[in-house]
């Protein structure tokens, strides 16, 4: 009796692991950058080619850094949310325009609206590598000391915004700079 139960137990344990595996998203990789200081980067701005966007621009305030591109379909979906939340004036949004043609990116912002304080134009994706960007859109919540506190892979959903990002921003705003 006991002996015949062993294969059944092995099966149940294995099935349990496989079932848990079904709901795991292999794309949702934990970023080693969370908890670390923002990487060094230096980009020319998208709209003003004379000016730059670098680490210094993110210093001393809570910010949301959003990597996007005009060729990225998911970014268009997320863009609606960014346009909505920017009206609440909770957090300034800075953009990294990832591997995009300047003209395409400008047309995108013209057409859909511009929620960004400024955008860095990362044509060759080098700043993207520094930020560990795998696929757009990706977003980072950065605190006053320039430490990445949270990262979203893929589009930010309304749920993620209200349940996680909004409370986090409120909390980070209370922290000393």
């Amino acid at each position: 009796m006991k002996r015949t139960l062993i294969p059944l137990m092995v099966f149940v344990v294995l099935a349990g692991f496989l079932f848990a595996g079904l709901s795991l998203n292999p794309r949702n990789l934990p970023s080693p950058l969370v908890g670390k200081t923002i990487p060094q980067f230096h980009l020319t701005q998208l709209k003003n080619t004379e000016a730059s966007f670098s680490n210094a621009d993110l210093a001393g305030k809570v910010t949301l850094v959003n990597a996007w591109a005009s060729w990225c379909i998911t970014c268009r979906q997320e863009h609606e949310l960014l346009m909505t939340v920017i009206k609440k004036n909770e957090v300034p949004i800075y953009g990294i325009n990832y591997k995009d043609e300047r003209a395409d990116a400008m047309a995108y912002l013209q057409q859909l609206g511009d929620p960004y304080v400024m955008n860095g134009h990362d044509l060759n994706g080098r700043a993207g590598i520094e930020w560990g960007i795998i696929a757009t859109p990706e977003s980072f919540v950065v605190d006053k000391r320039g430490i990445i506190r949270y990262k979203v892979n893929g589009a930010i959903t309304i749920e993620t915004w209200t349940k996680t990002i909004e409370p986090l921003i409120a909390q980070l705003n209370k922290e000393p700079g």
Partner: protein
Amino acid sequence: MRLLPVTLLLLWLPIAHAVVENKDIMPSDFTSTEQKLRFKELIKDLRCTVCQNQNLADSHASLAIDLRHQILEMMQKGKSDQEIMDFLVARYGDFVLYNPPFKQSTYLLWAIPFVALFFALWLLVRLIMKRQQQQPSPAGANNQALADALRNAGQSTPEDKHKK
């Protein structure tokens, strides 16, 4: 109606084209054969984080091409393999390595195959010892049955010696 799929394909074209092209590494980009071999060895053990089941050597993803450029540039600046891997791990995590490091979060990953092997060996040894303890062995009993059957048929086997 047949125009619909064609139109859809044509619509895809500008999107497909919009992705910024980046020229891949050419053999002429290497300064020596030694460097080329080292580069090839290195990118074999690194994972493309976009197309997750391919390594950097095999992938044609735009990010993989960028990373190959990054790696070659770092090699040409005199960085060691370890420094290059550390650079990538710092940005993309251990996932970028095909050979995960042995640390707290990977104890189980590394230990399970060995634990399973020892468990299987232990089962095997136990089984063998159990078999040896059983006297007379089932195999002997079968031979006896066979011998009886053969004798009944008028034939002899070595087992018949003991009968006398």
